[in-house]
């Protein structure tokens, strides 16, 4: 399935709208005092790459997974996570490689009808590529580059604080020739109450 530009525009525009809805002073302070770091969510997702471009003329995307943690921040929520994905070579002269995207993110969750929550945010991080190449020296086996992108998630509570969700995300890897990837993922997350001593440290 090819994901076309209008789809990105949609994700972008939804995020821009969120930024435009800048919090008022009182609103921000209200959250900072009552909600920031109150809970933390951990989740696991299975991901698949959905777009096709020049990059895919050389590599076939396999499947991957993503682990993340998310906490309410002074406004919105912050995320930290890692996304792991394997790309198989299409040509024997070109090695396959494994990617690890360590990211930090921020976003805002909006409640929708039917208990559905809609999260939109952005991420930045280190996109590491580990090449399966025996002919290069050890220092060149791994290369890392800045990765940044957007994410959007719909989630639904299935049991107490356990939620299932579907997400779309877009990553631009700022290599000399930019790598642009979009993913769809499904997964689950669980929300815990933050122990007081951890909240105390984080505040």
């Amino acid at each position, binding site marked *: 399935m090819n994901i076309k530009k209008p789809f990105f525009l949609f994700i972008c525009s939804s995020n821009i709208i969120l930024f435009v809805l800048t919090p008022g002073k009182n609103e921000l302070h209200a959250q900072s005092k009552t909600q920031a770091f109150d809970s933390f969510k951990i989740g696991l997702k299975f991901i698949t790459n959905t777009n096709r471009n020049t990059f895919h003329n050389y590599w076939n995307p396999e499947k991957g997974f993503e682990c993340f943690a998310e906490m309410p921040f002074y406004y919105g929520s912050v995320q930290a996570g890692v996304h792991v994905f394997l790309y198989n070579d299409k040509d024997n002269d070109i090695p396959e490689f494994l990617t690890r995207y360590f990211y930090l993110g921020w976003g805002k969750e909006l409640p929708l009808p039917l208990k559905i929550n809609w999260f939109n945010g952005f991420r930045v991080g280190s996109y590491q590529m580990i090449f399966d190449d025996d002919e290069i020296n050890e220092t060149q086996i791994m290369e890392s580059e*800045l990765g940044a992108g957007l994410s959007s998630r719909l989630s639904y509570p299935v049991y107490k604080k356990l939620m299932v969700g579907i997400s779309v995300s877009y990553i631009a890897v700022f290599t000399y020739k930019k790598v642009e990837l979009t993913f769809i993922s499904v997964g689950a997350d669980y929300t815990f109450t933050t122990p007081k001593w951890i909240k105390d440290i984080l505040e």
Partner: protein
Amino acid sequence: MKCIQLLTILLLIINLQVKAGDKWHDFSEKQIITIDMIRDAGLTRVADILLLANDWIVNTIDGFTWQASANGLSSFQRQTWLLMIDGQRMDINIFDITNLNMLPISINQIDYVEIISIPQIIEGEFTDKGLIHIHTVRPEAGLSYHGRLTYGNETGDPGPYRYTEFKSKNVDRIGADRSNEVSFAGKKQYIGASQTDQVYYPTDAAIYNRNQIISGKDYPRINMSSYSFKAGINALKGEHELFAGYTFVEDFLFFKPYGREIPVKSYFTHAGVNGFFMINDKTDIHYRCKYSTNRLKKRANIFDLDFDRELENVYANLEVDRRGSFYQSKIGIRFDRSYAHTKYQLDKDAYSSAAIYGQLNYSLTDNLHQSFSAFLRLDNDKIAVKGQATNSWKINSKQKLISILSFSQRNFEEDNSYWRWAENGYNFLEANSGGYSIIGGINKSQQFTTDIIWKAGINKTSSIEIGALYRFFNNLYFEKQTLQFDSFMESFSSPVQISAGEKGQVGGGRIRFNYQFTPQLGQRFFYSFRTAISGDDIFQDVWESLARHKIGFTLNYHPVENFSMWAMLSYLSSSNWIEYQEAAGQSGGKYSSTVNEAMILDMAAQKWIWHKRIRGSLLFRNIFNQLQKYHPNGASLELRFHIQAEILLDSIWSPE
């Protein structure tokens, strides 16, 4: 004779009984950069503070070593601005290159920085070309530990495309940099020690080939290690400090007369003490002395180039400060002796200089304050006279008008340029197939400066400052080169002609506006403009290499105490480097003699945790990935990010 006459006049002025106001007036015009501003901006290296210096224009070739011009006081050709740590002069300049990253401290040891952009006497020095004065943090009581780890990366690596027809070269990686500092402080004394490591890869496409060819290594790398020790005590009715430091850098020194970077090992050692005794409630005696060495040694290179040069310096300064109900004055004397060590045969391997100076501040009325200073410097048998006069008029409770006039002569011996060494027999260039000629004799230069500044506090949350400047220079010397591009070695070459006796005038102005929207959100705006008004052709050509317009707009947002966001939009107009004109054509478009204007957005965020014991910071530079170059043959600094973690464990243990 002149020297004695001027000194007599100065002493007479000091003894004049003038009407005075009750309060002291701070005459030193400066920009202060605090540690909070440094942290907000996510800065990771000491040299990064130049990016916050409003009135300074900077350039860099590799992104690690920066050159600067302070408020129109010099061009890029003479890097003669001064550098101090806690009142001690740091002589790290090597052949007109002052790399702030060579200081033996890390950025998290800084408490605040004074950027002096107007000639005046500070800590026994006359700042005719500007000064950066770094004040380090005084340790908290008890045992403390501070540590920092930073890592950065510039975008534009080939990534997986290196296996395809889209392959490209790897670009700069920044760090990882580390620093550790341990200190112990009691009620009246403290000691502290620090260690810093920095790594930088000068591998941008514009400089990679030059560095790779000369070093013979695929991944040219700059390594820096430094150590410092600091101790202080309050005793004898005063404060006394010892600072010692050592820096070792494996560097690529861009040596323009040779047209390329040369791998070098650079060593800097410094040990100094300074402080004051209070004689009575009106008189203090200040003292400063230091010993330093600055050494360049060979680092492996295919041409076997070896600067083999060491400069040893001993410095002593004694100053008497006196306060009265009518005036505040200082008078001082200082002495410098330098020893040169090299394999090249020098005409003279030791050299001395002495100076005597004085300053008087007084208030004619409650609203009118004045300051006069004079500084006489003797280099061998040459006298250089320097002086400054300031008038500060408090128009009303919100407005102030300041005018500053200065005149300074500068002996050739005050510079640490290659040419001063070459004239003394240091023939590195001739020994390595280079050469130079001097047209006209290099004599004492003169500089006259005028600055007029109007400051107004509009209300409690906003202030404005407007200034105009004029500079007149006479008897300057400039390097004149018509660089040719060597496509095989990817470097530049040209015979060097030193053109002496040059003169010219510079004019400009600036506007600053600060506004605090809310207690959480503030903004600062500045615009500065400087240009050569007239002068000899080479003077005007050299000033073309400095951007005329500089704009900065900074937003600071502190929504809560432990989290902040910072953004700076900066604009630097284009500059033209005439000596690269022919080389640019020969390089087939790889280089250009014009550095284009650039509008750059930087953004940073920081979060404190564990009751301000741990700080995480993320900085993005050049977010819109514009072409950001500072030098015609320098790196283009694309979108890059810096991440740093800092741990501040203050007062972990205390004997009480």
